[in-house]
């Protein structure tokens, strides 16, 4: 019982030293210390230990400390600025990642297929990497020609897109839609982004 009480009193001593003790407990502790020499010794030893630790004089940072820190700071402020900007605006990161993925996939798509290709239509004739819309014929729908030329002598009721090629329009040739020629990698990417957004927004 005495031993248990002693432990409790030590608990109170710590609460007291932390300024975190209930008034009635403090009164109990004070009363106990009057009668118990062991606890008194314990309490004084605790206070002495605290006083000794606190007495270690306040030391100062060595001379030139600030200069030394400033010299060691990373110099690439610009990179940090970008990192900070991206850190604060996650949507920019998403946009950047999207652009990188889109660009790389499109560039590789651009490089990979250098074979001639054209939209299938019974009224289109293919001759030596050239698609021909013969005179008097009508193609209903869009035409895409890749890695080749197109000669339009007849009529196209739709858009014509020429990727990496040239178009020849005969006098009688007629295209009701838009004609777009894409010869640069950037044009190619731009075209894709444009159609991508057209598709996205036409969805609404």
């Amino acid at each position, binding site marked *: 019982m005495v031993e248990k009480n002693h432990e409790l009193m030590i*608990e109170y001593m*710590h609460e007291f*030293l*932390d300024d*975190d003790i209930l008034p009635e407990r403090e009164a109990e502790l004070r009363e106990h210390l009057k009668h118990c020499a062991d606890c008194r010794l*314990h309490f004084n*030893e*605790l206070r*002495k*230990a*605290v006083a*000794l*630790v*606190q*007495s*270690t*004089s*306040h*030391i*100062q*940072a*060595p001379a030139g*400390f*600030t200069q*030394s*820190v*400033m010299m*060691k*700071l*990373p110099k690439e*402020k610009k990179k*940090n*600025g970008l*990192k*900070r900007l991206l*850190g*604060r605006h996650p949507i920019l990161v998403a946009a950047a990642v999207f652009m990188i993925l889109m660009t790389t996939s499109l560039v590789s798509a651009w490089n990979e297929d250098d074979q001639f290709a054209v939209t299938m239509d019974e009224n289109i004739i293919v001759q030596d990497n050239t698609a021909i819309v013969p005179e008097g014929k009508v193609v209903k729908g869009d035409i895409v020609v890749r890695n080749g030329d197109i000669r339009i002598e007849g009529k196209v009721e739709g858009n014509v897109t020429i990727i990496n090629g040239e178009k020849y329009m005969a006098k009688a040739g007629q295209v009701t839609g838009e004609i777009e020629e894409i010869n640069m990698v950037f044009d190619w990417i731009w075209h894709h982004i444009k159609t991508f957004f057209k598709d996205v927004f036409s969805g609404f």
Partner: protein
Amino acid sequence: MEEIVRRRITEVLKGDHNAFSEIVELYKDKVYQLCYRMLGNSHEAEDIAQEAFIRAYVNIDRYNTSRKFSTWLYRIATNLCIDRIRKKKPDYYLDAEIAGTDGLTMYSQIAADGSQPADEVTSMELQNEIQKEISSLPEKYRSVIVLKYIEELSLNEISEILDLPLGTVKTRIHRGREALRKRLRHY
């Protein structure tokens, strides 16, 4: 003080490199002292204190300006000290340093505001003894004792710096104090 710091941090965020030197000036002694008491030698303390400021600078964008800057800074410094303590050999403490030149610089630093050379030496010896006892505490007790009695921080701040529940901080302080009581009672 916090207001000045907040303004300087805004300037650092805008890219004003030099505003950071004022922050270092304001906190260098506190941070150095924290590291010195945690690590027990001046060379490592300087090394880690500098590292703490460099990390604060690099990660300044992660500092939440609505909270106390010193808490955030002490947290970086304390974590670096704990990492260092865990990495180094257990017998590498103050004793090893005393004989060298670093020990001498430390002597002259501490003695700077004393008056009588004889008293200085005695108190210096005592200080070294006490530091040795602090250094021999297990790291989990050492950090709470240093933060409470050297840096004079509140239990709440300590709990935030160490990312520990308040109850754990209290228990560690109690145990740390008991350990110090046993080690320092014969002085």
